[in-house]
């Protein structure tokens, strides 16, 4: 019953009420201005409904935030009232309630991000499995089932397009939240801060995702959309109402990303422990900082491009419809200016986790720390100048193509530095094969595939063949699994004792790894081969004469292996959270400051600020310390 | 407050100078834009100049990089 007094519940109730209210408001305004509420002409009637629903949904999103209570402190400030900086939780409430309520503790927010992320990844996975069943053979069969028509009002190719588009964007939202989870949970802890710089902004940045995700998923019930996750106009101008839900949902998630990244930058730059110069930060913080720089700047342009599409749909303003004087290629420029750097937003934190874990389990220093740190920045900076490689065949000005080919190929250089450094770190290491390390190693291999399949796409002549084929799908899944999914799973296993105070089940973790690694290799290599053979992407059906049936069936099996691996993961962490073996002390024998504290992490991370006295990854160097946990007392607690 | 009077005067005067500068530039822009439209690039340069004034003088971007308080 206490669930009913949580922010989550109050927010969702407020969102429903707000949506209804907003729709009523829109209708009332139309009546006041003498506009019709319906029209005998089908197209016009649909447009009127769209305007009303969009206003309702926007009001609903704001209502969620007000209802959940994220704004409460800010409203107090606006009225000139003081608020307390002490966020010690109410002891009369059970601990689980904190995770469903507005809480300013970065560890709670980090877990909230993480759980929401995993939920979205689950939805994205279910969508993928649905259309994978369809794609396991030629002919349209499964998605023509009566049940879909009954449930959603549409089926067949349109359902495929909707599922495929939603799979893409829901996964991306899930990944963005996962990035938020890692940044929020880890950055303050690793740099010795007790919280983020702006705890309220942090809570806002998380909670805005909840209505955002709800709206995004609701597009399934508003007729879906058939544009893929890129939403290119003019197609997105003609898509059903579900398109608007996609645009609004992504916009809200993007807003979260911007707010969160500002927090990360300020926290990293101003709240480091004494003695922690930038080049003595744990390597993950470099990745988080580079990520945040991309997020806070580029995200605005996808927001803008989506708003312009919304305005074009709602008000008939012609930005992108070339039949009305707009320019469809302009949208692609605005969209990719974010969406290319976004890919690095997804992978940089993951690469940071890999760099963080390899030394701990290899018992060796991270090879070339400075180069690894700066390569994150190199990738971030270069990524601003490569967006048009998504547009080699788009019909943009031809003179743009060659410069973008050069800049894109240059991304290989800092990425290469990372690979060489990882290989050198692993070389001659006394590797301990615990689950987090398995996932980190798996990530290196998978990301390697993603890396080497990049240059054929970056080179225009070969891209002419590969663009919009399954090769792109394979390349992208390689980078996402190697750059995010595997490192994210590794990070959750690795810091699980910090979160819960307990250990995960090692055996299940290892089964999960092999299930996912083998399944993924099967899946992604077949995607790459299908693409090379010329199978275009985003099609519900393919000609049986092409002979792709067997490969597609195997691909589906690989996909399901990955899916079941993730289900096992969910089972493992849910069960271990309460039933796992109690994990005491420095489980991994790590030098990092957070492991010098008890598990789970104390409420206020470091009551006693620590001092950095050495390099972070000097494993194998006798008598070296990274942190002095008790600078006043002088007694070393870290080795 | 008496000890602040001098710095206050100086700050207010600075504000006046910036405003005058902006007014002159804006009027110039207007004339160029209305009389000689092809000089578009020049107008953007002038606008950037104005923006630079506001960012340094009114928005005090310098404070971002100074750790000590000015007053």
């Amino acid at each position, binding site marked *: 019953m206490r669930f009913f007094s949580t922010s989550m519940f109050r927010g969702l109730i407020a969102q429903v009420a707000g949506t209804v209210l907003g729709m009523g408001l829109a209708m009332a305004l139309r009546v006041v201005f003498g506009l019709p509420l319906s029209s005998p002409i*089908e197209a016009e009637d649909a447009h009127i409904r769209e305007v009303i629903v969009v206003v309702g949904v926007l009001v609903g999103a704001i209502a969620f935030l007000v209802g959940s209570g994220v704004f409460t402190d800010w409203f107090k400030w606006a009225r000139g009232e003081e608020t307390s900086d002490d966020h010690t939780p109410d002891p009369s409430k059970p601990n689980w309630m904190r995770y469903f309520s507005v809480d300013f503790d970065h560890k709670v927010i980090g877990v909230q991000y993480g759980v929401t992320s995993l939920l979205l990844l689950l939805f994205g996975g279910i969508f993928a499995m649905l259309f994978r069943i369809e794609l396991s053979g030629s002919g349209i069969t499964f998605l023509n089932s009566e049940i879909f028509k009954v449930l959603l009002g549409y089926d067949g190719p349109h359902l495929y397009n909707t599922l495929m588009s939603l799979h893409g964007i829901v996964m991306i939202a899930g990944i963005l939240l996962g990035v938020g989870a890692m940044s929020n949970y880890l950055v303050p802890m690793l740099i010795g801060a007790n919280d983020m710089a702006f705890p309220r902004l942090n809570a806002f940045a998380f909670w805005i995702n909840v209505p955002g995700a709800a709206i995004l998923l609701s597009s399934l019930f508003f007729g879906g959309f058939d544009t893929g996750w890129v939403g290119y106009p003019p197609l997105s101008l003609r898509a059903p109402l579900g398109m608007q839900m996609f645009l609004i949902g992504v916009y809200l998630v993007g807003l979260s990303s911007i707010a969160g990244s500002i927090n990360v930058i300020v926290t990293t730059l101003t709240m480091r422990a004494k003695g922690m110069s930038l080049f003595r930060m744990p390597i993950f913080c470099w990745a988080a900082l580079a990520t945040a720089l991309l997020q806070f700047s580029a995200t605005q342009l996808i927001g803008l491009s989506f708003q312009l599409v919304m305005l074009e749909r709602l008000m008939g303003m012609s930005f992108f419809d070339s039949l009305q004087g707009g320019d469809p290629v302009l949208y692609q420029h605005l969209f990719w200016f974010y969406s290319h750097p976004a890919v690095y937003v997804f992978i940089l934190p993951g690469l940071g986790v890999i760099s963080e874990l390899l030394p701990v389990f290899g018992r060796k220093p991270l090879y070339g720390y400075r180069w690894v740190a700066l390569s994150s920045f190199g990738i971030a900076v270069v990524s601003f100048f490569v967006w048009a490689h998504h547009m080699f065949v788009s019909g943009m000005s031809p003179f743009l193509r060659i410069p973008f080919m050069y800049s894109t190929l240059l991304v290989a250089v800092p990425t290469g*530095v990372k690979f060489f450094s990882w290989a050198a770190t692993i070389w001659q290491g006394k590797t*301990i094969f615990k689950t987090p390390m398995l996932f980190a190693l798996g990530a290196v291999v998978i990301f390697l595939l993603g890396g080497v399949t990049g240059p054929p796409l970056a080179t225009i002549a070969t891209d002419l063949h590969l663009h919009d084929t399954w090769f792109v799908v394979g390349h992208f899944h390689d980078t996402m699994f190697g750059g995010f999914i595997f490192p994210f799973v590794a990070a959750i296993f690795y810091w699980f004792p910090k979160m819960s105070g307990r250990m995960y089940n090692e055996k299940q973790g290892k089964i999960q790894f092999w299930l996912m690694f083998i399944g993924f290799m099967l899946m992604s290599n077949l995607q790459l081969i299908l693409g090379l053979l010329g199978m275009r992407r985003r099609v519900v059906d393919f000609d049986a004469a092409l002979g792709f049936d067997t490969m597609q069936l195997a691909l589906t099996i690989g996909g399901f292996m990955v899916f079941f691996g993730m289900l096992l993961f969910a089972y493992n962490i849910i069960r271990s959270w309460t039933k796992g073996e109690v994990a005491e002390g420095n489980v991994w024998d790590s030098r990092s400051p957070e492991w010098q504290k008890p598990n789970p992490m104390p409420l206020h991370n470091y009551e006693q600020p620590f001092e950095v006295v050495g390099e972070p990854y000097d494993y194998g160097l006798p008598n070296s310390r990274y942190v002095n946990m008790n600078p006043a007392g002088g007694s070393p607690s870290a080795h | 407050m008496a000890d602040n009077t001098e710095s206050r005067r100086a700050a207010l005067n600075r504000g006046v100078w910036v405003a005058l500068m902006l007014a002159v530039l804006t009027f110039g822009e207007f004339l160029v834009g209305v009389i000689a439209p092809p000089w578009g690039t020049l107008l953007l340069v002038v606008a950037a100049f104005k923006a630079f004034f506001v960012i340094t003088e009114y928005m005090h971007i310098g404070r971002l990089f100074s750790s000590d308080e000015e007053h």
Partner: protein
Amino acid sequence: MIHLLIVGVLVVVATLGLGLLLTQTGILPAQASQQAITIDWLFNIHFWFIAFFVALICVVIVYSLIVFRRKAGEKGDGVYMHGNQRLEILWTVVPIGIVLWMAVIGGQTLSDVERRDPQAITVDVFAAQWSWRFQYEVTTEEGVRTAVASDVLVLPRNQQALLRLHSQDVIHSFYVPEFRVKQDILPGGEEYVRELRITPNTNGTYTVQCAEICGQGHYSMLAQVQVVDGSEFTAWLTEQAADCNLSDVECGQRWAETFGCLGCHTTDGTVKIGPTWLGLAGHAVELTDGSTVTADTNYLLTAIVDPNAQIVAGFQPNVMPQNFDELLSQEQINQIVAFIESLGN
């Protein structure tokens, strides 16, 4: 040192194995154009680099994990080595050199692929949701210039074809895997027409696919490409340029095929994107506003030239192109109606 030597040998072996696997097992479709030859040459260079890089990293990692792994009961840390400035500079500078070289040969390949032949024959490609139409300009024996439309792209072998790509609604993309090239097709006027040059070099039948998602029927937006000898091509074009001298119904069927009607409307009763034509003419049709009309000749004429006027229940407005009255002559429209009416029972 001995370890590095073994790794070196293994890298060479793995590179050779992987490189041969990628270049010799036919993971690219058949080549059917001059452009494909050039592009595949570049693909093979990429494949060798991929093979080398994958081999290098994987061999080092796997070798280290197996040989140096922590054996049972072993304690202590790995070898302390925190970095080597020279090595780092080396593996930054060498890749820069490599990618610059790749970019240079990439640029050369591109200019090779896009080389213009002034003798190229021009074909106007019209893409619409969800059909293809190819239009040739022919000068008949009497010296009259006339357009020939076809739903099959016929191209002469060893002659460059200049495709001018037009879209009537959303973005599409012209893609024939065997030709290796692809170009998005933008809607809008002449300003948005994009060009693609292909020099087919092997006779055969291929498929044009739309490679940019364009809505419900995207998956079925296919057309046939036939590469034939030059003389055969000329004969085909002359034949097409002749007026349709068949019966109205047969001519109607021909227009329905060439102008893409059958991409959405079937003649066998299955429902695709639009209503089927089988058993349509003369029968009652329920509209979205709930009313019912009879599909007589007038209804069919309106449905072709102004498709949004009456939407059949269960179908969407704005799906069918609204410019058929510009594309087709009145005679052609009448013949299509005659064809639909022939399917009435």
